[in-house]
Structures are given as structure tokens and as C-alpha cells.
């Protein structure tokens, strides 16, 4: 162990939120160190430029951490949903799809609405300025003026091109008299911030061109220029706490040299995602967990899907992976028989002919043998996928704990348990019926529904969101952080990743996670002197 300077802020994890925090702190002149267990993802590492990119998406570039078998990953044992995680600079944005919708005001007020989820200690209005900031910083395409959402500033770039898929779907939505709107995406439709516009290739899991925002290419270069020190292959083993109850820094293993080092810090910010963060806290002698809330209330979203085929070609394999979003069912309506709402994320199709033929969104695939080519000719270029994604209710038994398997450095892996509850099941039944309505309204010649239950009935969504495991709240007994993402128990410990989300909302979480991270980082920056010495935590944000 070697002596290290005391940095102002130590950030654990160089993913989306770690990079944003690093930028804010470094631009303010603070001494920032970020420790990332993985490494940089080089352009050549990505499958996009290789002939076997379809194969790689299923193997070494699979968003599911357990299918990749990468040295930088740690074992995650899940008895249900598969886990979207990428342990590298830029985190899971190296492989995500870049959908960028915001939460709605009611998502922050579910405690008031029905009491089956808590109210957040903050409101949509508290987060709104940071949604705008995040959009400008990362580069977003979309269209202001959606009547189903609060007013917003103009998006940095206009919506992505309207595809034939979008036209077909919008006609279906119109027939049903349902809301629809062009999807917001962290994919730029015009050159922006020295990054080129999207070229509509459709291979939207990460983007070597940087047309899709990946924090490794959009944010990290700026953070490094501003003076942040990023150490890769630096796996944090334990966050230490002193006798005064404050975090003192973190032990980490330099995976290149094998040395175990200690980085001292005045403030520690954890940005290790909804699985990695509780794992680290639990492994750090149960840090910040006197109330036994760390790891609990794992949220995934409810998720079901449909795949439909239409008569005329719509060539969904070209263009950005998503087309429209429908917020028709986003608010609670008790006449449906459940609380909370859901959105319809309209996907174009897979960019890969092979993926479609081998089976993509549903159980449908080309048969082997003499019928293969006829199936392909009738289905390729005719397919459309639609996700229905909803707000699942928290259950303290849905949680992340430590696994007996360890990573390559001896640190325990993570174990996940998740099972949908009664409200979630009712919602998913309703969602499937609405997907059927939409397929019929689009005059689909064929459609298949997907409930992501395996042959044993276990709900196993594809590589998916992990939220809520160190949730934000007003009550220190039922939450892990306050309204500034500050640990109730460790005054100079902040958590800024998706684990703080108190509700899952009806949308992909990265915009909200990013906005919250910027908000928290701004608070830390503006109150650094006091936070460097604080020995207690405000009861309300």
C-alpha cells in the first residue's frame, strides 16, 4: 500500500454519472480522482466495423454481463431478469440503445397518489433544469411541444428521420386515437459538439461514430481536459469509514500491477450502477446500511413486447433503433385495475437480417429447411417491434445481495432476486392486450406477443435496467440517500447512479439518472467546503 494524496472528490465508477460528476468537479477546479475497474473501450473493440457484428452482439458484445465473460466484469447471479451492465469507461452506455425520455411529474409523487411507492423528496420541477442541462451536454434529438409532457426547451437537434415504420405505427395510433410522439434519443440528428450526425445504420448498441452519446467519448474527454484524474483497471474493494462516521477514501486494486492502494478523499461519490453500488456498500462492512435498505427495492420496470409484420415493406432495419413513443397510458387510471402507467416504446427492427431470421423480439423465427427462405422473404423488411414498459412497484425482497462467487480480485459478486408483484402482473396483462390492439390497428398480417417468461414461468427480461437499490427518500428509515443523493449515515458519501431512483417511472432511466447526477454534483460543488467537514446530514433536501 502506498501513500496517496487526499483528493477533494473520489468518484467510484466512470460510467454515465461518474463522468458527469467528474466534469462538474474538475471544471470547478476541484482535485478529482475517478477509479474505474474496467478500461477504455477502443473503437476496434466494437463489433460495428466487423463482418460478424451480429454474432458479436450475442456473444462478446452482449449487453448482459453474464453472457460476455469479460475480464473486467464481476459475476452477477440473477434468478430472473438479465442484467444490462458494462464495466468500462462510459459504463453501460457502451452498449445501450440511447432512448432519452424524461420522467413525468407524477412519477415523483406516487406516495401522494396511491401510497404503494414513496414520494421522492424532490419534484419534477427540482430536476427539470438538470434535464435541460443534460440534454445540452450529451446531445439529444427530439421535439418539444408534446402535450403529454411538461413544456421543455428545444432539443439540441431535431428528431431523427421519420421511418416507414414510424409512419405505419402513427397511422395505427391515429386509428386508435392514442397519443404518439417522435422518440427522444441521445443520438444527434445533426452534427453537434464536434460529433457527426447519425447515419441511420441501425446498429444501436453503442456507437463508434459517437453519433449516439457515449459518455466515454462525449463527456470524459472534457473531464480529463478539465483536470480529472481517471485511473482505469482500478477496482474498488472497499470504502473506508473513520471514527467520526465520515468516509475516508477507498481501497482499490490496481489490476495492472496487482497492488492494493488506498485513495484518501474528502468526499466520496459512488457511481457504480444499481447493482455495483449496493454490492460495494455491502462489501464495505455494510456501509451506509444501518437501516438495512441498501440493495433492497430493486426495480426493473414491467416489460412485455410485441413483434408484428406488415404487408408492405417498412425496412425497419435502417434508421435509429426506436421510432415513436406513446404516452397514452402513462398516468394511473384505476379503471384498468392497477396503479401506475406504462409507455409504448416503438422500436424499428433489428438491423441484422440474421438476427431477424434467428429470432429477435419474440419466438418467431425462420424455420430450418425448405421453408426458411420463404419465411425470410415474407418477414425481412416487414417487421416492427414494440415494447410496453411500465412502473413496477417496489418490494423490499426484490434486492441485491452479495454472492459467494467472487470476481477476479476476490471481491464478492452480486446476487439478484426479483419477482413481479400483483400490480405488475395486472399491468403486464393489460399491456399485452394493448399491444394486440396496436398490431391490429396497424393491419399487421402477423404478430407475436412476448411476456419474457421462460419455460418455467420465470420472468426473465433481456438485459435490463437496475434501479432503486439505494433509493432517495425523505425518511432515513426507508431510504439510503436524501434529496441531494447524500447518504443519511455517512455525511460525505454520495450515490449518484440509478440505485437512487425511488420509482422507476415508465421510461428508460438514463436521462433521469444523468439529470440527478448533475444536480447532486452541482450541490456538492457549491457546498464543498461545508460538506468536507459535515458530520451530520440534513433531514430534508
Amino acid at each position, binding site marked *: 500500500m502506498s501513500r496517496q494524496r487526499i483528493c477533494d472528490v473520489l468518484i467510484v465508477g466512470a460510467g454515465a454519472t461518474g463522468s458527469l460528476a467528474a466534469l462538474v468537479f474538475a471544471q470547478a477546479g476541484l482535485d478529482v480522482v475517478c477509479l474505474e475497474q474496467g478500461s477504455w473501450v477502443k473503437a476496434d473493440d466494437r463489433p460495428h466495423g466487423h463482418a460478424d457484428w451480429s454474432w458479436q452482439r450475442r456473444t462478446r458484445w452482449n449487453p448482459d454481463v453474464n453472457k460476455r465473460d469479460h475480464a473486467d466484469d464481476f459475476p452477477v447471479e440473477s434468478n430472473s431478469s438479465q442484467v444490462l451492465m458494462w464495466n468500462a469507461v462510459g459504463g453501460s452506455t457502451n452498449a445501450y440503445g440511447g432512448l432519452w425520455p424524461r420522467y413525468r411529474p407524477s412519477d415523483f409523487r406516487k406516495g401522494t397518489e396511491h401510497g404503494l411507492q414513496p414520494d421522492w423528496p424532490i419534484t419534477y420541477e427540482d430536476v427539470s433544469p438538470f434535464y435541460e442541462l443534460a440534454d445540452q451536454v450529451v446531445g439529444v434529438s427530439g421535439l418539444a411541444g408534446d402535450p403529454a409532457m411538461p413544456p421543455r426547451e428545444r432539443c439540441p437537434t431535431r428528431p431523427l428521420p421519420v421511418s416507414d415504420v414510424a409512419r405505419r405505427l402513427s397511422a395505427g395510433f391515429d386509428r386508435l386515437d392514442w397519443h404518439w410522439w417522435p422518440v427522444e434519443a441521445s443520438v444527434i440528428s445533426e452534427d453537434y459538439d464536434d460529433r457527426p450526425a447519425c447515419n441511420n445504420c441501425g446498429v444501436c448498441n453503442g456507437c463508434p461514430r459517437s453519433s449516439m452519446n457515449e459518455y466515454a467519448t462525449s463527456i470524459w474527454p472534457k473531464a480529463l481536459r478539465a483536470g480529472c484524474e481517471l485511473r482505469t483497471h482500478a477496482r474498488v474493494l472497499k470504502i473506508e469509514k473513520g471514527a467520526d462516521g465520515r468516509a475516508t477514501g477507498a481501497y482499490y486494486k490496481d489490476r495492472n500491477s496487482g497492488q492494493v492502494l488506498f485513495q484518501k478523499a474528502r468526499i466520496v461519490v459512488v457511481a457504480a450502477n444499481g447493482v455495483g453500488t449496493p454490492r460495494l456498500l455491502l462489501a464495505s462492512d455494510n456501509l451506509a446500511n444501518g437501516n438495512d435498505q441498501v440493495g433492497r427495492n430493486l426495480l426493473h420496470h414491467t416489460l412485455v413486447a410485441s413483434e408484428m409484420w406488415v404487408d408492405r415493406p417498412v425496412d425497419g432495419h435502417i434508421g435509429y433503433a426506436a421510432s415513436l413513443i406513446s404516452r397514452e397510458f402513462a398516468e394511473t387510471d384505476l379503471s384498468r385495475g392497477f396503479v401506475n402507467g406504462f409507455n409504448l416504446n416503438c422500436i424499428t427492427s433489428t438491423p441484422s437480417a440474421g438476427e431477424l431470421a434467428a429470432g429477435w423480439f419474440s419466438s418467431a423465427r425462420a424455420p430450418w429447411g425448405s421453408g426458411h427462405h420463404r419465411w425470410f422473404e415474407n418477414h425481412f423488411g416487414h417487421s416492427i417491434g414494440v415494447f410496453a414498459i411500465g412502473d413496477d412497484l417496489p418490494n423490499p425482497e426484490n434486492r441485491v445481495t452479495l454472492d459467494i462467487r467472487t470476481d477476479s480480485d476476490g471481491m464478492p459478486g452480486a446476487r439478484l432476486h426479483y419477482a413481479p408483484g*400483483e400490480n405488475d402482473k395486472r399491468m403486464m396483462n393489460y399491456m399485452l392486450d394493448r399491444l394486440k390492439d396496436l398490431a391490429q390497428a396497424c393491419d399487421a398480417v402477423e404478430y407475436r406477443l412476448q411476456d419474457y417468461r421462460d419455460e418455467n414461468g420465470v420472468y426473465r427480461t433481456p438485459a435490463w435496467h437496475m434501479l432503486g437499490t439505494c433509493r432517495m427518500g425523505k425518511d432515513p428509515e426507508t431510504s439510503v440517500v436524501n434529496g441531494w443523493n447524500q447518504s443519511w449515515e455517512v455525511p460525505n458519501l454520495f450515490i449518484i447512479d440509478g440505485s437512487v431512483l425511488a420509482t422507476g417511472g415508465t421510461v428508460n432511466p438514463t436521462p433521469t439518472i444523468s439529470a440527478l447526477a448533475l444536480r447532486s454534483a452541482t450541490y456538492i460543488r457549491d457546498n464543498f467546503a461545508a460538506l468536507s467537514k459535515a458530520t451530520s446530514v440534513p433531514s430534508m433536501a
Partner: protein
Amino acid sequence: MQPNTLPIANETILRHLVDELVPGDGRWPSASEVGVHGVVMLRLFGDQPSSAIEQLALALDCGSDGLLNAASERRISAVRQFEAANPVLFEKIYTAAVLAYYEMPGVVEAIRAGGRPYSTFPHADGYPMPAFDLEHDTPTHGRGRYLRTEDVVPLDVSSIDLGSATTERWGMER
């Protein structure tokens, strides 16, 4: 890693198998014509001992009257039996064969010949699409609503009886 040098017989097994999975017709090449069997060999069996292919041959009844039979019905029957008896392995092989097939330039040409735009390397050049037209593509339906923060009020959820009523059949079972 040492390249896995196949005895001729093993190569024959995979070639015949992939041709049953994705046969050729007048418009489309067969899987082996475009080299799919070699790719499947590398991707699925490249790190495995040669006994893995030998076991595959046994499962496909290559020794007697199965996959290598001159009659197509026999070959198809052998593959069907293999699929039923080894569903996991069959799935892996079929998926690998299909993904490899549609990577091949000859197959990409066949897709294009059918009138669909398609690229082997879409990320390199992308696809042309007209830009979003703010005047003509902006939705005009006026549908959609949201609750403002101050509009969120307590709802009486007793009517939906989440406490005692249980949904037994959900998802595709509903």
C-alpha cells in the same frame, strides 16, 4: 490457440447439417456454398475437443442412415430427431448457422436482389433517410395529457383490491 484441424469426415458433417438447416434454392445459396459450416465450426467447436464433433455425428446418425443419406427425407428426419433429442445444442447450432449465413456477401447480394436495401457493414456508410421535416412531420393530433405536480391527488385504491385478489394467469397465460 492451435487451429482446430478437422478430419475430412468432420467437415462433411457440418456441411451436410448446415445445408439441411438453410438449403439453397434458385435464388438463395445453400449455407455451405457460402462457407457457413466453416464459420460454425470455428465459433462453436473451435475451442472444443474433436470428440464434440464426433458426438454430434453420432447424434445425427451419420454412421448409418441419417444425415449423410442420399434421400432428403432421411436427412431431414435425422435432423428432426437431433433437434428433439438435443434442443439446446440444436438451438446453438441453428442460431450460429443463421447468423453466419446472413453475414456472407453472397447472401447480402441476394437480399438486395430481392429489393431490400441492406449492407454488410451498415455502420460504415449508414443508410440515406430524409431529415425530419419540422413543418410536415410534427404531429398535429393534439392528444396526450400529463398530471402536473400540484394535480397529483390521493386515489382510493381499495377498489382494485391489490391486497387479496391474486392474478393467477399472467403474461401469455392470461
